[in-house]
Protein backbone atom coordinates (compact mmCIF):
# COMPACT_ATOMS: atom_id res chain seq x y z
CA UNK A 1 0.00 0.00 0.00
CA UNK A 2 2.97 2.27 0.47
CA UNK A 3 4.12 4.75 -2.13
CA UNK A 4 7.24 2.71 -2.93
CA UNK A 5 4.99 -0.13 -4.02
CA UNK A 6 2.62 2.03 -6.00
CA UNK A 7 5.21 3.60 -8.27
CA UNK A 8 6.79 0.48 -9.81
CA UNK A 9 3.34 -1.05 -10.24
CA UNK A 10 2.17 2.01 -12.18
CA UNK A 11 5.29 1.91 -14.33
CA UNK A 12 4.76 -1.70 -15.10
CA UNK A 13 1.22 -1.13 -16.34
CA UNK A 14 2.54 1.61 -18.60
CA UNK A 15 5.17 -0.61 -20.22
CA UNK A 16 2.71 -3.47 -20.62
CA UNK A 17 0.35 -1.23 -22.53
CA UNK A 18 2.97 -0.17 -25.09
CA UNK A 19 1.91 -2.91 -27.46
CA UNK A 20 -1.77 -2.05 -27.05
CA UNK A 21 -0.97 1.60 -27.61
CA UNK A 22 0.87 0.79 -30.86
CA UNK A 23 -2.10 -1.23 -32.06
CA UNK A 24 -4.59 1.48 -31.21
CA UNK A 25 -2.49 4.09 -33.01
CA UNK A 26 -2.24 1.93 -36.11
CA UNK A 27 -6.03 1.77 -36.18
CA UNK A 28 -6.55 5.47 -35.39
CA UNK A 29 -4.41 6.97 -38.15
CA UNK A 30 -6.44 5.72 -41.17
CA UNK A 31 -9.68 6.67 -39.43
CA UNK A 32 -8.30 10.17 -38.89
CA UNK A 33 -7.44 10.52 -42.56
CA UNK A 34 -10.96 9.49 -43.60
CA UNK A 35 -12.39 12.11 -41.25
CA UNK A 36 -10.33 14.90 -42.81
CA UNK A 37 -11.38 13.75 -46.29
CA UNK A 38 -15.08 13.71 -45.34
CA UNK A 39 -14.91 17.25 -43.96
CA UNK A 40 -12.99 18.53 -47.00
CA UNK A 41 -15.63 17.06 -49.35
CA UNK A 42 -18.57 18.44 -47.34
CA UNK A 43 -17.16 21.94 -47.20
CA UNK A 44 -16.25 21.94 -50.89
CA UNK A 45 -12.47 22.05 -50.52
CA UNK A 46 -12.13 19.20 -53.03
CA UNK A 47 -13.96 18.34 -56.29
CA UNK A 48 -16.45 15.60 -55.39
CA UNK A 49 -16.67 14.43 -59.01
CA UNK A 50 -13.15 13.06 -58.58
CA UNK A 51 -13.02 12.79 -54.80
CA UNK A 52 -16.50 11.88 -53.57
CA UNK A 53 -17.04 12.07 -49.80
CA UNK A 54 -16.27 8.86 -47.90
CA UNK A 55 -19.88 8.81 -46.70
CA UNK A 56 -21.23 8.63 -50.27
CA UNK A 57 -18.63 6.02 -51.16
CA UNK A 58 -19.75 4.14 -48.05
CA UNK A 59 -23.37 4.33 -49.26
CA UNK A 60 -22.40 2.79 -52.62
CA UNK A 61 -20.22 0.31 -50.79
CA UNK A 62 -23.19 -0.71 -48.63
CA UNK A 63 -25.36 -1.12 -51.70
CA UNK A 64 -22.75 -3.27 -53.42
CA UNK A 65 -22.39 -5.36 -50.28
CA UNK A 66 -26.12 -5.97 -50.07
CA UNK A 67 -26.23 -7.05 -53.69
CA UNK A 68 -23.33 -9.41 -53.05
CA UNK A 69 -21.39 -7.88 -55.95
CA UNK A 70 -18.55 -6.61 -53.79
CA UNK A 71 -18.22 -9.83 -51.82
CA UNK A 72 -18.00 -11.87 -55.02
CA UNK A 73 -15.24 -9.73 -56.50
CA UNK A 74 -13.35 -9.46 -53.20
CA UNK A 75 -13.54 -13.18 -52.60
CA UNK A 76 -12.27 -13.99 -56.09
CA UNK A 77 -9.32 -11.62 -55.70
CA UNK A 78 -8.50 -13.03 -52.26
CA UNK A 79 -8.67 -16.54 -53.59
CA UNK A 80 -6.18 -15.69 -56.35
CA UNK A 81 -3.96 -13.92 -53.85
CA UNK A 82 -4.06 -16.92 -51.55
CA UNK A 83 -3.17 -19.52 -54.17
CA UNK A 84 -0.52 -17.26 -55.68
CA UNK A 85 1.07 -16.80 -52.26
CA UNK A 86 1.09 -20.54 -51.62
CA UNK A 87 2.33 -21.51 -55.09
CA UNK A 88 4.97 -18.78 -55.19
CA UNK A 89 5.87 -18.66 -51.50
CA UNK A 90 6.39 -22.30 -50.59
CA UNK A 91 8.81 -23.19 -53.41
CA UNK A 92 10.60 -19.90 -52.69
CA UNK A 93 10.87 -20.82 -49.03
CA UNK A 94 12.36 -24.24 -49.71
CA UNK A 95 14.66 -22.99 -52.47
CA UNK A 96 15.79 -20.00 -50.43
CA UNK A 97 16.67 -22.07 -47.38
CA UNK A 98 18.43 -24.64 -49.57
CA UNK A 99 20.41 -21.80 -51.14
CA UNK A 100 21.31 -20.47 -47.72
CA UNK A 101 22.46 -23.85 -46.44
CA UNK A 102 24.18 -25.21 -49.52
CA UNK A 103 26.93 -23.46 -51.42
CA UNK A 104 26.43 -25.45 -54.61
CA UNK A 105 22.69 -24.79 -54.78
CA UNK A 106 23.45 -21.12 -54.20
CA UNK A 107 26.08 -21.01 -56.95
CA UNK A 108 23.66 -22.60 -59.42
CA UNK A 109 20.54 -20.57 -58.65
CA UNK A 110 21.89 -17.21 -57.60
CA UNK A 111 22.71 -15.94 -61.12
CA UNK A 112 19.30 -17.01 -62.45
CA UNK A 113 17.49 -15.19 -59.67
CA UNK A 114 19.73 -12.15 -59.94
CA UNK A 115 19.05 -11.95 -63.69
CA UNK A 116 15.26 -12.37 -63.53
CA UNK A 117 14.59 -10.37 -60.41
CA UNK A 118 14.96 -6.90 -61.98
CA UNK A 119 12.29 -7.57 -64.66
CA UNK A 120 9.23 -5.52 -63.71
CA UNK A 121 6.68 -8.17 -62.79
CA UNK A 122 3.83 -6.29 -64.48
CA UNK A 123 5.74 -6.57 -67.78
CA UNK A 124 5.35 -10.34 -67.62
CA UNK A 125 1.54 -10.11 -67.74
CA UNK A 126 1.23 -10.48 -71.55
CA UNK A 127 3.47 -13.53 -71.36
CA UNK A 128 1.36 -14.93 -68.52
CA UNK A 129 -1.79 -14.38 -70.58
CA UNK A 130 -0.15 -16.07 -73.53
CA UNK A 131 0.88 -19.11 -71.54
CA UNK A 132 -1.99 -19.47 -69.07
CA UNK A 133 -4.83 -17.87 -71.02
CA UNK A 134 -7.53 -15.62 -69.62
CA UNK A 135 -8.50 -18.02 -66.83
CA UNK A 136 -7.40 -18.26 -63.21
CA UNK A 137 -3.95 -19.55 -64.13
CA UNK A 138 -2.56 -16.25 -65.36
CA UNK A 139 -3.78 -14.32 -62.27
CA UNK A 140 -2.41 -16.84 -59.82
CA UNK A 141 0.84 -16.98 -61.76
CA UNK A 142 1.26 -13.20 -61.51
CA UNK A 143 0.80 -13.24 -57.73
CA UNK A 144 3.11 -16.24 -57.42
CA UNK A 145 5.84 -14.40 -59.35
CA UNK A 146 5.40 -11.35 -57.13
CA UNK A 147 5.66 -13.39 -53.92
CA UNK A 148 8.43 -15.69 -55.11
CA UNK A 149 11.31 -13.21 -55.40
CA UNK A 150 11.15 -11.42 -52.05
CA UNK A 151 10.66 -14.73 -50.24
CA UNK A 152 13.48 -16.59 -51.99
CA UNK A 153 15.89 -13.69 -51.51
CA UNK A 154 14.96 -13.16 -47.89
CA UNK A 155 15.05 -16.86 -47.06
CA UNK A 156 18.59 -17.09 -48.48
CA UNK A 157 19.72 -13.99 -46.62
CA UNK A 158 17.97 -15.15 -43.47
CA UNK A 159 19.81 -18.46 -43.43
CA UNK A 160 23.15 -16.87 -44.33
CA UNK A 161 22.76 -14.41 -41.48
CA UNK A 162 22.27 -17.15 -38.90
CA UNK A 163 25.26 -17.06 -36.59
CA UNK A 164 27.64 -19.89 -37.55
CA UNK A 165 27.84 -20.97 -33.94
CA UNK A 166 24.27 -22.33 -34.11
CA UNK A 167 25.18 -24.56 -37.04
CA UNK A 168 28.23 -25.73 -35.09
CA UNK A 169 25.98 -26.56 -32.16
CA UNK A 170 23.73 -28.55 -34.48
CA UNK A 171 26.73 -30.42 -35.82
CA UNK A 172 28.12 -31.03 -32.34
CA UNK A 173 24.79 -32.39 -31.13
CA UNK A 174 24.50 -34.58 -34.22
CA UNK A 175 21.50 -32.93 -35.82
CA UNK A 176 20.86 -34.53 -39.21
CA UNK A 177 19.91 -32.55 -42.34
CA UNK A 178 16.22 -32.73 -41.63
CA UNK A 179 16.69 -31.52 -38.03
CA UNK A 180 19.15 -28.84 -39.09
CA UNK A 181 16.45 -27.51 -41.41
CA UNK A 182 13.61 -27.64 -38.87
CA UNK A 183 15.43 -26.70 -35.69
CA UNK A 184 18.06 -24.24 -36.92
CA UNK A 185 17.73 -22.95 -40.49
CA UNK A 186 13.98 -22.35 -40.58
CA UNK A 187 13.48 -20.81 -37.13
CA UNK A 188 16.73 -18.86 -37.39
CA UNK A 189 15.74 -17.34 -40.71
CA UNK A 190 12.05 -16.95 -39.88
CA UNK A 191 12.07 -13.25 -38.94
CA UNK A 192 13.73 -12.34 -42.25
CA UNK A 193 11.46 -14.76 -44.14
CA UNK A 194 8.40 -13.10 -42.61
CA UNK A 195 9.61 -9.77 -43.94
CA UNK A 196 9.93 -11.42 -47.34
CA UNK A 197 6.34 -12.65 -47.20
CA UNK A 198 5.07 -9.22 -46.16
CA UNK A 199 6.87 -7.61 -49.08
CA UNK A 200 5.81 -10.37 -51.47
CA UNK A 201 2.14 -10.28 -50.56
CA UNK A 202 2.19 -6.49 -50.99
CA UNK A 203 3.62 -6.93 -54.49
CA UNK A 204 1.10 -9.73 -55.11
CA UNK A 205 -1.73 -7.35 -54.30
CA UNK A 206 -0.43 -4.81 -56.81
CA UNK A 207 -0.07 -7.48 -59.48
CA UNK A 208 -3.49 -9.01 -58.91
CA UNK A 209 -5.12 -5.60 -59.41
CA UNK A 210 -3.22 -5.05 -62.66
CA UNK A 211 -3.86 -8.57 -63.94
CA UNK A 212 -7.58 -8.31 -63.25
CA UNK A 213 -7.86 -4.98 -65.06
CA UNK A 214 -6.54 -6.42 -68.28
CA UNK A 215 -7.43 -10.04 -68.57
CA UNK A 216 -10.38 -10.76 -66.31
CA UNK A 217 -14.13 -10.62 -65.93
CA UNK A 218 -14.06 -10.70 -62.14
CA UNK A 219 -12.10 -9.52 -59.13
CA UNK A 220 -11.49 -6.12 -57.60
CA UNK A 221 -9.16 -5.03 -60.40
CA UNK A 222 -11.91 -5.75 -62.91
CA UNK A 223 -14.43 -3.88 -60.73
CA UNK A 224 -12.25 -0.78 -60.64
CA UNK A 225 -11.56 -0.92 -64.37
CA UNK A 226 -15.22 -1.33 -65.36
CA UNK A 227 -16.21 1.48 -62.97
CA UNK A 228 -13.75 3.72 -64.82
CA UNK A 229 -15.17 2.83 -68.23
CA UNK A 230 -18.72 3.64 -67.05
CA UNK A 231 -17.61 6.64 -64.95
CA UNK A 232 -19.05 5.20 -61.75
CA UNK A 233 -16.56 7.06 -59.57
CA UNK A 234 -18.04 5.93 -56.24
CA UNK A 235 -17.87 2.32 -57.37
CA UNK A 236 -14.25 2.82 -58.34
CA UNK A 237 -13.52 4.13 -54.86
CA UNK A 238 -15.43 1.21 -53.36
CA UNK A 239 -13.08 -1.13 -55.21
CA UNK A 240 -10.05 0.88 -54.18
CA UNK A 241 -11.27 0.91 -50.61
CA UNK A 242 -11.61 -2.85 -50.58
CA UNK A 243 -8.09 -3.30 -51.96
CA UNK A 244 -6.75 -0.87 -49.39
CA UNK A 245 -8.66 -2.68 -46.67
CA UNK A 246 -7.28 -6.03 -47.80
CA UNK A 247 -3.75 -4.60 -47.81
CA UNK A 248 -4.24 -3.10 -44.38
CA UNK A 249 -5.77 -6.20 -42.84
CA UNK A 250 -3.08 -8.39 -44.37
CA UNK A 251 -0.36 -6.21 -42.85
CA UNK A 252 -2.02 -6.28 -39.44
CA UNK A 253 -2.65 -10.01 -39.75
CA UNK A 254 0.89 -10.80 -40.82
CA UNK A 255 2.30 -8.72 -37.96
CA UNK A 256 0.09 -10.66 -35.55
CA UNK A 257 1.17 -13.92 -37.15
CA UNK A 258 4.79 -12.91 -36.73
CA UNK A 259 4.26 -12.29 -33.03
CA UNK A 260 2.81 -15.78 -32.70
CA UNK A 261 5.36 -17.72 -34.73
CA UNK A 262 8.41 -15.67 -33.69
CA UNK A 263 7.75 -15.36 -29.96
CA UNK A 264 11.45 -15.33 -29.12
CA UNK A 265 12.18 -11.95 -30.69
CA UNK A 266 12.31 -9.20 -28.10
CA UNK A 267 9.72 -6.52 -28.75
CA UNK A 268 11.16 -3.63 -30.71
CA UNK A 269 12.43 -1.08 -28.26
CA UNK A 270 11.74 -3.27 -25.24
Amino acid at each position, binding site marked *: MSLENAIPAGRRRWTMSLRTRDRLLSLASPIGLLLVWELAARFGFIDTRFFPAPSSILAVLGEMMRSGELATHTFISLERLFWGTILGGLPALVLGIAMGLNRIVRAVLDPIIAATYPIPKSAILPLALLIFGLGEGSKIFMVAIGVFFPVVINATTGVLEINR*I*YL*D*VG*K*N*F*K*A*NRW*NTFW*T*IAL*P*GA*LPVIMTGFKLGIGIGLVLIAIAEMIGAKSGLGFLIWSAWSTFEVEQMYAGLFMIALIGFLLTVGLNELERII*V*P*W*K*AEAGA
Partner: protein
Amino acid sequence: MNDTIEQPLAHAADPAARSAAAIRLRELCKTFGRLVAIDRVSIDIQSGEFFMIVGPSGCGKTTLLRILAGLDAATSGEIAISTPRSDRPVNAMIFQGDSIFPWMTVWNNAAYGLKMRGVATPVIKEVVGHYLARTGLTRFADYYPYQLSGGMRQRVSIARAFANDPEILLMDEPFSALDAQNKLLLQEELLRIWEEQKKTVVFITHSVDEAVLLGDRIMIMTAHPGRLKLIVPVPLPRPRNLMDLQKAPEFGALVHRIWSSLREEVLRAREQEDKEAAS
Protein backbone atom coordinates in the same frame (compact mmCIF):
# COMPACT_ATOMS: atom_id res chain seq x y z
CA MET B 1 52.30 -48.57 -26.12
CA ASN B 2 48.80 -48.31 -24.82
CA ASP B 3 49.65 -48.89 -21.19
CA THR B 4 51.97 -45.94 -20.72
CA ILE B 5 50.20 -43.83 -18.18
CA GLU B 6 51.36 -40.34 -17.45
CA GLN B 7 51.37 -38.68 -14.06
CA PRO B 8 49.00 -40.21 -11.54
CA LEU B 9 46.01 -38.06 -10.74
CA ALA B 10 45.68 -36.29 -7.45
CA HIS B 11 42.06 -37.25 -6.98
CA ALA B 12 42.26 -40.72 -8.48
CA ALA B 13 40.02 -42.47 -5.99
CA ASP B 14 39.35 -45.45 -8.22
CA PRO B 15 42.54 -46.26 -10.12
CA ALA B 16 40.98 -49.10 -12.10
CA ALA B 17 38.38 -46.84 -13.65
CA ARG B 18 41.05 -44.34 -14.60
CA SER B 19 43.57 -46.69 -16.11
CA ALA B 20 42.50 -46.03 -19.69
CA ALA B 21 43.10 -42.81 -21.53
CA ALA B 22 39.81 -41.26 -22.57
CA ILE B 23 41.52 -39.18 -25.23
CA ARG B 24 44.79 -39.99 -26.95
CA LEU B 25 46.37 -37.53 -29.33
CA ARG B 26 49.49 -38.49 -31.28
CA GLU B 27 51.47 -36.03 -33.37
CA LEU B 28 48.34 -34.02 -34.09
CA CYS B 29 48.85 -31.26 -36.67
CA LYS B 30 46.56 -28.69 -38.16
CA THR B 31 47.58 -26.24 -40.83
CA PHE B 32 45.61 -23.52 -42.56
CA GLY B 33 47.44 -22.96 -45.83
CA ARG B 34 50.98 -22.07 -44.77
CA LEU B 35 50.01 -21.26 -41.20
CA VAL B 36 50.74 -24.04 -38.71
CA ALA B 37 48.04 -23.78 -36.04
CA ILE B 38 48.83 -26.97 -34.16
CA ASP B 39 52.21 -28.64 -34.37
CA ARG B 40 52.68 -32.28 -33.33
CA VAL B 41 50.66 -32.31 -30.14
CA SER B 42 50.64 -35.64 -28.29
CA ILE B 43 48.72 -36.02 -25.07
CA ASP B 44 46.84 -38.61 -23.07
CA ILE B 45 43.85 -37.36 -21.14
CA GLN B 46 42.64 -39.80 -18.52
CA SER B 47 39.06 -40.82 -18.11
CA GLY B 48 37.40 -38.59 -15.53
CA GLU B 49 40.15 -36.01 -15.70
CA PHE B 50 39.52 -32.28 -15.64
CA PHE B 51 42.08 -31.22 -18.21
CA MET B 52 42.88 -27.55 -18.72
CA ILE B 53 44.55 -25.93 -21.71
CA VAL B 54 46.06 -22.46 -21.44
CA GLY B 55 48.05 -20.55 -23.98
CA PRO B 56 48.44 -17.15 -25.58
CA SER B 57 45.76 -16.15 -28.06
CA GLY B 58 46.40 -17.68 -31.46
CA CYS B 59 48.04 -20.77 -30.00
CA GLY B 60 45.48 -23.02 -31.64
CA LYS B 61 43.72 -24.09 -28.48
CA THR B 62 40.26 -23.44 -29.89
CA THR B 63 41.27 -25.29 -33.07
CA LEU B 64 42.38 -28.24 -30.96
CA LEU B 65 39.05 -28.31 -29.17
CA ARG B 66 37.12 -28.04 -32.44
CA ILE B 67 39.05 -31.04 -33.77
CA LEU B 68 38.18 -33.00 -30.62
CA ALA B 69 34.54 -31.97 -31.11
CA GLY B 70 34.57 -33.20 -34.70
CA LEU B 71 33.81 -29.72 -36.04
CA ASP B 72 37.16 -29.47 -37.83
CA ALA B 73 39.43 -32.17 -39.22
CA ALA B 74 43.08 -32.54 -38.27
CA THR B 75 45.64 -32.22 -41.07
CA SER B 76 47.63 -35.17 -39.78
CA GLY B 77 48.12 -37.22 -36.65
CA GLU B 78 46.00 -39.55 -34.62
CA ILE B 79 43.02 -38.98 -32.37
CA ALA B 80 41.56 -41.80 -30.34
CA ILE B 81 38.63 -41.23 -28.06
CA SER B 82 37.56 -44.25 -26.06
CA THR B 83 33.86 -44.98 -26.18
CA PRO B 84 33.07 -47.68 -23.65
CA ARG B 85 29.33 -47.10 -24.03
CA SER B 86 27.95 -47.00 -27.55
CA ASP B 87 24.62 -45.53 -26.43
CA ARG B 88 26.37 -42.39 -25.29
CA PRO B 89 27.46 -39.48 -27.50
CA VAL B 90 31.21 -38.98 -27.69
CA ASN B 91 31.28 -35.33 -26.76
CA ALA B 92 29.29 -32.22 -26.04
CA MET B 93 30.74 -28.77 -26.40
CA ILE B 94 30.11 -25.67 -24.34
CA PHE B 95 30.93 -22.81 -26.65
CA GLN B 96 32.45 -19.45 -25.95
CA GLY B 97 29.77 -16.77 -25.93
CA ASP B 98 26.10 -17.17 -26.73
CA SER B 99 25.39 -20.50 -28.34
CA ILE B 100 21.94 -21.43 -27.07
CA PHE B 101 19.22 -21.11 -29.68
CA PRO B 102 17.32 -17.83 -29.29
CA TRP B 103 14.21 -19.44 -30.83
CA MET B 104 13.92 -22.18 -28.23
CA THR B 105 12.85 -21.99 -24.62
CA VAL B 106 15.33 -22.85 -21.90
CA TRP B 107 13.77 -26.29 -21.66
CA ASN B 108 13.98 -27.05 -25.37
CA ASN B 109 17.54 -25.77 -25.49
CA ALA B 110 18.59 -28.05 -22.64
CA ALA B 111 16.76 -30.98 -24.26
CA TYR B 112 18.29 -30.39 -27.70
CA GLY B 113 20.97 -33.09 -27.68
CA LEU B 114 18.60 -35.70 -26.28
CA LYS B 115 15.95 -34.85 -28.85
CA MET B 116 18.45 -35.09 -31.69
CA ARG B 117 19.37 -38.55 -30.44
CA GLY B 118 15.72 -39.58 -30.35
CA VAL B 119 15.68 -40.29 -26.63
CA ALA B 120 12.24 -41.21 -25.22
CA THR B 121 10.21 -38.27 -23.89
CA PRO B 122 9.93 -39.49 -20.26
CA VAL B 123 13.71 -39.86 -20.09
CA ILE B 124 14.20 -36.39 -21.57
CA LYS B 125 11.81 -35.00 -18.96
CA GLU B 126 13.71 -36.59 -16.13
CA VAL B 127 17.22 -35.73 -17.33
CA VAL B 128 16.47 -32.17 -18.40
CA GLY B 129 14.50 -31.58 -15.21
CA HIS B 130 17.50 -32.77 -13.20
CA TYR B 131 20.04 -30.54 -14.91
CA LEU B 132 17.79 -27.48 -14.96
CA ALA B 133 17.42 -27.97 -11.22
CA ARG B 134 21.19 -28.35 -10.82
CA THR B 135 21.80 -25.12 -12.70
CA GLY B 136 19.02 -23.26 -10.90
CA LEU B 137 16.98 -22.81 -14.06
CA THR B 138 13.83 -24.77 -13.19
CA ARG B 139 11.82 -21.59 -12.74
CA PHE B 140 12.95 -20.32 -16.14
CA ALA B 141 12.18 -23.45 -18.16
CA ASP B 142 9.66 -21.63 -20.37
CA TYR B 143 11.72 -18.46 -20.80
CA TYR B 144 13.36 -17.50 -24.07
CA PRO B 145 17.07 -16.62 -24.01
CA TYR B 146 16.43 -12.92 -24.61
CA GLN B 147 14.70 -12.83 -21.23
CA LEU B 148 17.80 -14.15 -19.43
CA SER B 149 21.09 -12.61 -18.32
CA GLY B 150 24.41 -13.66 -19.86
CA GLY B 151 25.25 -15.83 -16.85
CA MET B 152 21.92 -17.63 -17.04
CA ARG B 153 22.30 -18.21 -20.76
CA GLN B 154 25.67 -19.85 -20.14
CA ARG B 155 24.03 -22.02 -17.46
CA VAL B 156 21.58 -23.23 -20.12
CA SER B 157 24.55 -24.12 -22.29
CA ILE B 158 26.06 -26.11 -19.41
CA ALA B 159 22.75 -27.88 -18.75
CA ARG B 160 22.43 -28.71 -22.47
CA ALA B 161 25.90 -30.28 -22.55
CA PHE B 162 25.54 -32.28 -19.32
CA ALA B 163 22.00 -33.43 -20.18
CA ASN B 164 23.30 -35.02 -23.35
CA ASP B 165 25.43 -37.29 -21.12
CA PRO B 166 28.54 -37.40 -23.34
CA GLU B 167 31.78 -39.31 -22.73
CA ILE B 168 33.71 -36.05 -22.71
CA LEU B 169 32.81 -32.43 -22.18
CA LEU B 170 34.59 -29.80 -24.22
CA MET B 171 34.55 -26.23 -22.95
CA ASP B 172 35.86 -23.29 -24.92
CA GLU B 173 36.39 -20.40 -22.52
CA PRO B 174 32.79 -20.76 -21.37
CA PHE B 175 32.99 -18.04 -18.72
CA SER B 176 35.18 -15.48 -20.45
CA ALA B 177 32.28 -13.15 -21.25
CA LEU B 178 31.00 -13.06 -17.68
CA ASP B 179 31.75 -10.60 -14.90
CA ALA B 180 33.96 -11.73 -12.01
CA GLN B 181 31.14 -12.54 -9.57
CA ASN B 182 29.11 -14.55 -12.06
CA LYS B 183 32.24 -16.31 -13.20
CA LEU B 184 33.04 -17.55 -9.69
CA LEU B 185 29.46 -18.69 -9.14
CA LEU B 186 29.38 -20.60 -12.40
CA GLN B 187 32.78 -22.16 -11.76
CA GLU B 188 31.50 -23.43 -8.41
CA GLU B 189 28.32 -24.72 -10.03
CA LEU B 190 30.25 -26.42 -12.77
CA LEU B 191 32.45 -28.24 -10.28
CA ARG B 192 29.42 -29.26 -8.22
CA ILE B 193 27.70 -30.78 -11.24
CA TRP B 194 30.93 -32.35 -12.45
CA GLU B 195 31.52 -34.02 -9.04
CA GLU B 196 28.30 -36.04 -9.58
CA GLN B 197 29.68 -38.11 -12.43
CA LYS B 198 33.27 -36.95 -12.96
CA LYS B 199 33.14 -36.91 -16.72
CA THR B 200 36.28 -36.25 -18.70
CA VAL B 201 36.55 -32.51 -19.31
CA VAL B 202 38.79 -30.60 -21.69
CA PHE B 203 38.57 -26.95 -20.74
CA ILE B 204 40.22 -24.06 -22.53
CA THR B 205 40.85 -20.83 -20.72
CA HIS B 206 43.07 -17.80 -20.91
CA SER B 207 42.84 -17.35 -17.16
CA VAL B 208 45.60 -19.03 -15.16
CA ASP B 209 43.53 -18.67 -11.96
CA GLU B 210 40.66 -20.52 -13.56
CA ALA B 211 42.97 -23.26 -14.80
CA VAL B 212 44.34 -23.89 -11.30
CA LEU B 213 40.96 -23.60 -9.58
CA LEU B 214 39.26 -26.16 -11.81
CA GLY B 215 41.87 -28.45 -13.31
CA ASP B 216 43.57 -31.74 -12.49
CA ARG B 217 46.31 -31.01 -14.99
CA ILE B 218 47.13 -27.94 -16.99
CA MET B 219 48.65 -27.99 -20.43
CA ILE B 220 50.51 -24.87 -21.49
CA MET B 221 50.73 -24.26 -25.21
CA THR B 222 53.13 -22.13 -27.24
CA ALA B 223 51.92 -19.81 -29.96
CA HIS B 224 52.73 -19.81 -33.71
CA PRO B 225 52.93 -22.75 -34.07
CA GLY B 226 50.80 -24.20 -31.27
CA ARG B 227 52.90 -26.78 -29.46
CA LEU B 228 52.69 -28.50 -26.14
CA LYS B 229 55.10 -26.67 -23.86
CA LEU B 230 54.46 -28.10 -20.43
CA ILE B 231 51.95 -30.14 -18.51
CA VAL B 232 51.58 -29.15 -14.85
CA PRO B 233 49.64 -31.37 -12.44
CA VAL B 234 47.43 -29.63 -9.88
CA PRO B 235 47.69 -31.66 -6.68
CA LEU B 236 44.89 -29.85 -4.90
CA PRO B 237 42.30 -32.01 -3.14
CA ARG B 238 38.67 -32.23 -4.24
CA PRO B 239 35.96 -31.25 -3.71
CA ARG B 240 37.39 -27.76 -3.84
CA ASN B 241 36.16 -24.66 -2.16
CA LEU B 242 37.07 -21.99 -4.68
CA MET B 243 36.81 -19.11 -2.23
CA ASP B 244 39.20 -20.71 0.27
CA LEU B 245 41.43 -22.08 -2.43
CA GLN B 246 42.18 -18.63 -3.81
CA LYS B 247 43.79 -17.71 -0.48
CA ALA B 248 45.82 -20.93 -0.15
CA PRO B 249 49.62 -20.65 -0.58
CA GLU B 250 49.72 -23.76 -2.86
CA PHE B 251 47.28 -22.03 -5.17
CA GLY B 252 49.45 -18.92 -5.37
CA ALA B 253 52.57 -20.98 -6.01
CA LEU B 254 50.92 -22.90 -8.84
CA VAL B 255 49.50 -19.78 -10.44
CA HIS B 256 52.93 -18.21 -10.25
CA ARG B 257 54.63 -21.22 -11.78
CA ILE B 258 52.20 -21.50 -14.67
CA TRP B 259 52.02 -17.81 -15.27
CA SER B 260 55.80 -17.46 -15.50
CA SER B 261 55.89 -20.22 -18.08
CA LEU B 262 52.95 -18.76 -19.95
CA ARG B 263 54.33 -15.24 -19.76
CA GLU B 264 57.31 -16.16 -21.92
CA GLU B 265 54.92 -17.46 -24.55
CA VAL B 266 52.68 -14.42 -24.46
CA LEU B 267 55.70 -12.13 -24.82
CA ARG B 268 57.10 -14.25 -27.63
CA ALA B 269 53.74 -14.22 -29.42
CA ARG B 270 53.55 -10.46 -29.09
CA GLU B 271 57.05 -10.03 -30.43
CA GLN B 272 56.13 -12.17 -33.43
CA GLU B 273 53.00 -10.16 -34.05
CA ASP B 274 55.00 -6.94 -33.92
CA LYS B 275 57.46 -8.36 -36.40
CA GLU B 276 54.70 -9.46 -38.75
CA ALA B 277 53.02 -6.07 -38.49
CA ALA B 278 56.31 -4.34 -39.25
CA SER B 279 57.16 -6.45 -42.31
